Every structure is written in C-alpha cells, then in structure tokens.
C-alpha cells in the first residue's frame, strides 16, 4: 500500500476512503461490530497536518517519512488526537477534544499514515473484553456472539474485519496481546519506554505501553517502527535507537533458544489449547528453534500483584476527572464535595469504580505496607525470574497468550475475578517491562460449530523486539500467513 502511494500510482486518499467505506459497512446496525467510537471524514486532514507543538530538543527523529504513506490506521480512543474526540470510552470524557496530540499519533502522521477513526475499548482500558465501554461492547468479527477481548478490542476487531491493516492499542496487562489472540491477528507490546506515553491517557503509568496490531507480523512491525523512539515529553521513554523491525523479519528462528515456562502450562489448561500449543512448539522446533523447559516461579503471584498495583496507580491517575475543568460535570452540585461525587458517580462505569476503590484501599494508611509495598516487592521478584532465564541463555519464551479462546458476550461480566484471570499469561510482561507479541496459533472447536482462534505469545528480554518479531514471523509463516504488503 505504502509503496503504491509513495510511487503515486494510487491517490493518497485511496486507502483511507476504502477503509472508511468498509468501516461504515461493518460497524453499525444490528450485529454491527461497534469497533469505532468516531470515524474521520473522508479525505481527512492531510498527513503532514501541523503537530501540536514542536518537539523538545533531543527527540529521536521519527522513522522515515512515508513509511506508512497513505496507509489507513485506526487508533484506540485513549490516545489523544486533535481532529477526533478522545473519550477512553467513558461518559466522563464524552465529547472531550484534546488540545494536543499524542506523540505516537503525531509520528503516525509524520510517517504518512491516515487516521481512520478512534476505536472502542474497555473504559479507561480497564477490562479484558471491551464490554466495559460506556458506548456499548465491540463484537468479535470472527464470531459476533463473542467478545473481541480487551481492552483494545476495537482496534483488534478493526484489523480482523479487514477495515485497516494495522491499528494502535495500549497494553497495561495484556490489552493488545489478548484481543489480538481473540480476534486472530497479531498484537505486539514493546518494551516499557520504547514508545512515548505522551498523550496516552494513563491507566497505570508504570505498566501502560502503546502497542501495535497488524494483520501480519510485518504490518504490526511497520506500525511499531513508525511510532517508537525516545520522546523528551515522556520521562519514562528511553533514549535508544529504534531498530529496523520490519527489514529483518524473515531471518527466522534457527538456533534460537526458546523457553517454555511450565507455570504458563498448568494442568488446568484446556486440552485443546494445550494441543494447539504443543503443535506450535513443534513448528518452532521444525523451524530450527532449540526448545527448553524453564521455570518462572513467581508467576503465580502475578495476577494479584497486578491487581494491587494497576488499580493503585489508576486511583491516582483518574483523580483528575472531577468535573472541574473538562468532561462531564454535575452542574447542579451545591458544594465541591457534591460536585466530585456526582460527576464521578455519573461519569465512571462500575469496573472503573471498582478499580478506583481497590486502588485507594491498597494505598490507604494501615494497608499500604500490606498491599502496595508488598506488591512492589513481588513485582521485583517477577522481573528477576525473567532476568535469570535470560541469563541462562534463553532468547525467547513461548506461551499461550490466554488460557482459552474468546468467550461469549456477557459470559464473564458478572464475575470480575474470572475476567481478571484471562490476563494470567500477559500481565507478567507488563510487570517486568519486557516486550511480548501474540500471533495466531490455530483454532479450537467453539461449541457452536465455529472455530475461534487462539494466540501464542513470545516474550523477550528488554529491547529485543527484533528477534521476538522474527520468531513470531517464523510461526506465522508456518501457518501459511504470508503478510500482505503494507
């Protein structure tokens, strides 16, 4: 696509207009996907639209102009955009327009990409099914009775439905990788600090990272390459050169040591999931990988650690939505306290309220040591598990992305803990700050005669996205996915 636009054989708006047409066709009406919360106007603003302000000195130059020339891209609704609202799928930000643009979005424009629209998500990225959106759930394009996963469900669905070749999401505990697995597409979460968080509406700042979806590993790699790099506006972004992620993708996996962590393969894992996983491992072996069993003993504490730390940070990050300066405001309130209470009660959905309560509790006097401080210690242990494995000569880890395929809409909404457990294999990468990618790993029998897809996850040491994506590519090729040209 990009090559055709760069050469001028296709008009710059061609793919954008096709994507918009497609989005309108699949998104609305009975059983529509509801993947988009807002769509761009046909034609849209030019790709070189002036940015929100000049970068501070020292910003790593965004990778080559025209990398994504004319490519239509969908963006999760928690990334700030100038020309479309940014709501985080929350009533409290309904209609909110950011006066500035997220660095990742600005870099998309610099690379020539065309913003198709803002995608649906779990409210403030809190959820694993996109059912927590204040504007209705997104449906899974592979089976419209199933959830697309979450929280970046809208972006995953937009890619899976063929509206866009790639889309941005964010991954705090698996919010890119899990929906990628559920929708049968590729989803990559880079190393913490690889992509600027400036303009990514914070859920849990120490875990949040912008991630990329693609129809293929190549699409995801191109998108990641375009948005990655140091940004002086984000003190947690890291000053490191962005490697050529898309160029060496076909180098394969020969000779790489791939670890299979036993903690990710519990006896309780569904036999069919285990079967698909074992087949994938066999494919890796055939592609030349050296397979080794490894152990990450603190994995079993990961979900509880995550659900102390993420809500703690969220309780503070979401304090700014108070109805005073922007967003939904309970204007009839007669006192400041009443204004806060009414605006927040009305503006936040039940899952957000639950996490704010959880997080506030974990930081409260008397509980701080027991919850927040202890969780920080366990987090360090979880990170150390990974460091030990890398130090032992393991290049990559391979796991199922989620314990099972996409569940049905409404199936888990009444049981938050069951919902939280769908993150069990993905939260560790966020806690340790390492990169991870989910690639399609076959299908299972869906019960209703359908064949929902599964995802397999590669994890890699910090900054090792390139070999990780090469492995993902090798697996993808073994399934016959060629990767169309972006």
């Amino acid at each position: 696509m990009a090559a055709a636009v760069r050469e001028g054989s296709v008009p710059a708006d061609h793919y954008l207009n096709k994507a918009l047409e497609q989005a309108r066709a699949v998104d609305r009406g009975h059983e529509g996907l509801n993947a988009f919360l807002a769509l761009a106007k046909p034609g849209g603003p030019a790709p070189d639209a002036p940015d929100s302000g000049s970068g501070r000195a020292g910003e790593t130059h965004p990778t080559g102009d025209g990398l994504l020339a004319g490519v239509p891209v969908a963006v999760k609704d928690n990334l700030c955009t100038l020309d479309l609202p940014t709501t985080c799928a929350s009533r409290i930000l309904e209609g909110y327009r950011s006066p500035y643009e997220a660095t990742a979005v600005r870099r998309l424009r610099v690379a020539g990409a065309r913003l198709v629209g803002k995608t649906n998500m779990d409210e403030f990225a809190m959820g694993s099914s996109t059912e927590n959106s204040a504007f209705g759930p997104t449906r899974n394009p592979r089976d419209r009775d199933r959830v697309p996963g979450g929280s970046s469900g809208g972006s995953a669905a937009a890619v899976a439905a063929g509206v866009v070749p790639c889309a941005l999401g964010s991954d705090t505990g698996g919010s890119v990788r899990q929906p990628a697995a559920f929708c049968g597409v590729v989803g990559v979460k880079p190393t913490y600090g690889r992509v600027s968080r400036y303009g990514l509406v914070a859920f849990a700042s120490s875990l949040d990272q912008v991630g990329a979806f693609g129809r293929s590993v190549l699409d995801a790699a191109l998108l990641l390459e375009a948005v990655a790099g140091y940004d002086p506006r984000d003190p947690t972004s890291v000053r490191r050169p962005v490697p050529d992620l898309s160029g060496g993708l076909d180098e394969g996996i020969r000779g790489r040591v791939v670890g299979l962590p036993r903690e990710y393969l519990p006896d309780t894992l569904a036999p069919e999931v285990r079967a698909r996983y074992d087949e994938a491992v066999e494919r890796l072996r055939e592609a030349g990988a050296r397979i080794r069993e490894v152990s990450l003993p603190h994995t079993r504490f990961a979900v509880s650690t995550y659900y102390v730390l993420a809500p703690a940070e969220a309780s503070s990050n979401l304090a700014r939505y108070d109805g005073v300066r922007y967003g939904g405001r309970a204007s009839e309130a007669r006192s400041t306290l009443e204004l806060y209470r009414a605006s927040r009660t009305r503006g936040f959905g039940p899952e957000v309220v639950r996490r704010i309560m959880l997080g506030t509790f974990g930081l409260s006097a008397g509980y701080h040591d027991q919850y927040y401080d202890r969780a920080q210690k366990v987090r360090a242990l979880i990170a150390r598990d990974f460091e030990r494995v890398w130090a032992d000569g393991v290049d990559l880890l391979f796991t199922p992305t989620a314990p099972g395929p996409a569940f049905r809409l409404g199936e888990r909404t009444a049981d938050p803990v069951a919902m939280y457990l769908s993150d069990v294999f993905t939260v560790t990468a966020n806690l340790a700050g390492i990169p991870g990618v989910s690639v399609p790993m076959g299908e299972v029998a869906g019960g209703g005669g359908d064949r929902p897809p599964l995802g397999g996850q590669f994890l890699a040491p910090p900054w090792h996205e390139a070999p990780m994506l090469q492995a993902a590519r090798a697996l993808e090729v073994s399934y016959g996915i060629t990767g169309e040209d972006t």
Partner: protein
Amino acid sequence: MTDRAPDAGYEAVIGLEIHVQLRTEEKLFCPDGTGFGEVPNTNVCPVCLGLPGALPVLNREAVELAVRASLAFGCTVHQRSVWARKNYFYPDLPKGYQISQFEEPLATDGVFRVETDDTSDPVGRLAIRIRRIHMEEDAGKSIHDRFEGATAVDLNRTGTPLIEMVTEPDFRSPAQVRAWLTGVKQVLEYLEVSDCNMEEGSLRVDANVSIRPVGSEPLGTKTELKNMNSFSGVERALDVEIARQRDVVAMGGQVAHQTLLWDERRGDVRPMRSKEESHDYRYFPDPDLPPLQVSENLIEAVKAQLPELPAARRTRFREDYGLPAYDAGVLTARRPLADYYEETARTSGAPKEASNWIMGPVLAAMNARDLEADDFPVRPVHLAELIDLVEEGTINRNVAKDVLGRMLESAAGVEVGSAAAKTPAEIVREEGLATVSDTGRLEAWVEDALAAHPEEVARFRDGETRLQGFFMGEVMKRSRGKADPTEVARILTERLEET
C-alpha cells in the same frame, strides 16, 4: 512581649514547615512561566492543567536552586531522591495529586544558626536543626471572594517549583522563631533562590506548637498553625496559641490535636473545619518520573558557587572595614545593599564614611522610593566620588547632602547607571558649590554679617560667646553654605575679639 517567662513552669515547643517558591523562569514540570499577578489561567499548558495523557518533564534549573538552598542550610543532599504523589481532591489541584517527595527527600539533616540578642542563649546563637528539605510543585489558587456564591480557580501558580523545609521542634519561643525566620529569609535572598515575598505567597510558614512542663522530655499534643502572612504574624499567632494552650492546661483540660487558622484582623486563631484537614494522602512513588539523580559533580559545583552568606559577610565587614556590629548588621541585611556598600567603600577608601552615608541619607532615599540598592539611581561609584569630595574638603557635608539630592533629581527618568546622570563633581562645578576658602571673600561675608547685627556683636563682646554659632550661621547663609567653616571660624574670632 513575646519573651515573657513561661507561666506555671510550662515551655513552648515549636517546629516549622516552610514553603519557598523557587525563582525559576519555568514551572517544575512544564515550560510555562511563573510570573505573579498575571491574567488568571494564562500561564498554563496540558501538563499543569492535568489534561488527560499529559506527562511531567523535570526542570533541572529548579533542582539546582533546591540543591543550593539545601547546601546553604547545612543539609546532606542525596544523590538519589524519589518523586511521590500526594493524593487529595481540591479544585485548585488539577491532577488530584501533587507531585512531591516523601520517603526519600532531596536533602536531610541540616542545621542553621542565627545570631540573636536573646539573653537566655549564652552563646547568642540560635541553632535549629532542619529535618529535611524536599521539592514539590505548588497548587493553584482558589478564590472565594471574586464571584458571588462560587469559587474561582486560577491555575497560573499550579506547578511552580517549591521547596518545603521542615525543622525539628527546636524553638522554645515565638521570638526565636521570628529571629530565625529572618535569618532564613536573608539567606534565601542571598542565594537568589526565591523572592521570599510572604504577601505574594512565595514564602509560606506553618508552625507546629505544643507546651510541656519545663524539664519534661516527652512532647505535648501539638496544634498546627496556618495562614500567617508575615513574620510578625507568625510570632503573634504563636503567642496567642501558646497562651490558649496554657489556659486549656491551667483549666485542667487537654490540648486537642487540630489545625488552626490565624485570623490576622481579629488577632485570633480558629479551628479549620475537620473536613478540610483529615487527609490520608496515600503517598506512592510517581510512576511518571524516574528517581531524581543529583550527581556528586553537581553538588560540588553548586557548593563551590555558593555566595558568601550573610553571617560570614557581617563578620568580614566588621573585620575588613572596621564597622561596628550594628552597621555590619544593617548593611548585610540584603545582598544588593551589601554589594552596594562594599563597592562604595572600596571605591572611596573611606569605609566608615561610606557606612554613615548609606545608613543615613542613602537608605532613607531608597526606602522613600521603595527601591532595592541595585535599582537605586545613584551608583556606588558616584556616591564614592561624593564622599571623596567631602574628605578632600572640596565641599562640606551639608552641601554634599544637597548634591546627593541633585544627583537623584538628575538621575530621575534615566536608566540606572546611565551616563546621562550627573556626577557629583559635575554638579559641584556647574552650580559653583565648592567650598570657598578665599580669605577676601570670607572676610567680606563676615563684615556684612557683623554689620547687620550690631546688637549681637555688643552682647558677644559683653561675654555672651555662645553667639559665635549665630554669627557662623549668618556667614554660611551669605555664602549659601559654601564657606569653609574652619576659615570662617578663624576670621570671626579674630574680628570679634578686636576691640
């Protein structure tokens, strides 16, 4: 008044929390300006407005100022300190938390001494330990009296860099507090880290106070005093609160732990509503900001560049210029004035004269015009020239005072230090103000004065010699002050004693 002996064997125990706005161009975490008194909500951006997705970026200039202050107050500056979020809801706190430091502050364990005339202190030095100095961002301002039935919020101040200095409870009287604060303010001004303007809020002092029986070790229950807008307000508020606590105890009651607001107009304290104070701030390390690293090199460089502080300068002024303690104290109170004095003294070579001039007419003129020494139109080089003109005898002291007035007039409206301002020598020359010692002219003025007052001449000759001064005045009048007084006295004596 404030040093009254503790009633009934009780002593006060006081500790301070001091917030100092740092004088930076930009805010602590974003590039907005920090000016005071600008149009509300104009010095703001996505970061200090707390807009969704915005992230803080540290201003290193503020760190350097904070390190400077920490070193000047004798603290250990830590190479690693941690930003923490202090969570609470308030309309002028856009993010719902303040970025501060909590468990690992920038600096700890300082001591700062001031000289006092407190007779109860045998050394005459008040040494107060500083527990910690940490950095944080300021909140905005809630304005409750601007709109009927509504609160207005101005976020210009939001994100202005502050240091908070916490002392140990080492004070035993409100007078000590005031004396020490005066010294602290002097140092902060010398360091050029803050404007220290309590009215504009760039220096804010809260106090914790309790009482206990003299000789008793454990601390009593403390109350927290807020809302004092001057050092004298701090002193008076503490006086009032200590008296209140004594009354409570004398009546057999117990002091309740609470926050009290000083009411300057009523001269009284009132409890803050409990809703306003009971906070669990839920501190935790700010995940948006890596720990603050201050290199050994930076600490050493800042240390090497610390200016001479007021106490050292006072000592040196006494030693180098032979000034009395009082003069040295007045002249070093503010760094621009001390610089002004020092330049004048060095240029003129008459340090004591320079002190007399500056502590007298110059300071009076500065105060009348509300000017700092560095904005005063008469520059040290010209003041020194004026002093030299007197020392050489070109003009006398009274004429010199007039010349100073002319210098101020000629400098009015021109830029400070501009060549357009007249030098004292020019004024003396142009206006013919040089002392007249020419005997012929002096004798003529004497003749004229005596001839005009025959009666007084007769009384003088009858022994009323104190009339000498009267004749002196008459001659000076005729000379418009220019007559050389020594010569005039000699001629007068000669003429009056002739019979």
